[in-house]
């Protein structure tokens, strides 16, 4: 069940190379991507998304906000989409 509208599709192509996107990409590249296996109870059937979460790449919420025009009144949350092990690793 794929929901891709023509407008949002072309919008993403235009906005992806913007300065904000480049800054976001640089931020993601600088983050800690140490592998931490997540609990199966918090995982889904997709090994690709599970792997992205295990390696701290899963910023899906922000990607969707950027591409799908979701709730543009809400600023992106840097913690959005991060895994529980990631947050736990940041605790003192």
């Amino acid at each position, binding site marked *: 069940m794929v929901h891709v509208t023509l407008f949002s599709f072309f919008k993403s192509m235009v906005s992806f*190379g913007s300065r904000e996107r480049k800054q976001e990409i640089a931020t993601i590249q600088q983050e800690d*991507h140490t592998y931490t296996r997540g609990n199966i109870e918090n995982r889904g059937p997709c090994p690709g998304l599970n792997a992205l979460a295990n*390696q701290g790449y899963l910023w899906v919420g922000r990607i969707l906000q950027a591409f799908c025009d979701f709730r543009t009144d809400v600023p992106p949350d840097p913690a959005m989409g991060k895994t529980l092990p990631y947050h736990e690793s940041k605790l003192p």
Partner: protein
Amino acid sequence: MTGLHMSSTLASTLAHTLRPLVRDDGTFDLRDMRKHNVLEHDRSFTRLDFRQGDNYTFQPPMFQALLDDANDGPVTIPTLAKTYVRRKREAKSSGAPRLSISLWGVNLIQTVSFYHTAAMSSLSKETMTTFYVEERFPDQILKNSKKRTLPGLIWDTIILMQAIVFKA
């Protein structure tokens, strides 16, 4: 998608597929991926079908069958076609309902999605094991800066369909 060197078009398209699972605040949980016949569907290569009770836990015997289809590796599009045909046959013989047109497309694309993401001519047993068993992208994939594109994914899907029809 930055870490996987995806083009903006491919990243956007893949992100859009998650919209049915996204909450009002723009987030979703990986657990939500378990919802049957949204994105998750029967005939997974490494997960049981929905009616079997657990459609999300990795099943080692199914993974071994995937490797067996490739004579223990390397995995290529023709071996993925063989696995696709086997899983379709297994689902049919067990009385599973047919996939909808949209999920049939999702199933085909997902069949080659890791192959395309890896950007390798073939997937070794070690690469497959790292991805499916450890659920981790190997360094050789993350460090391979070859651009992954939507046309490339579509092309791999076409090659898969050709292999399904003529070879598998």
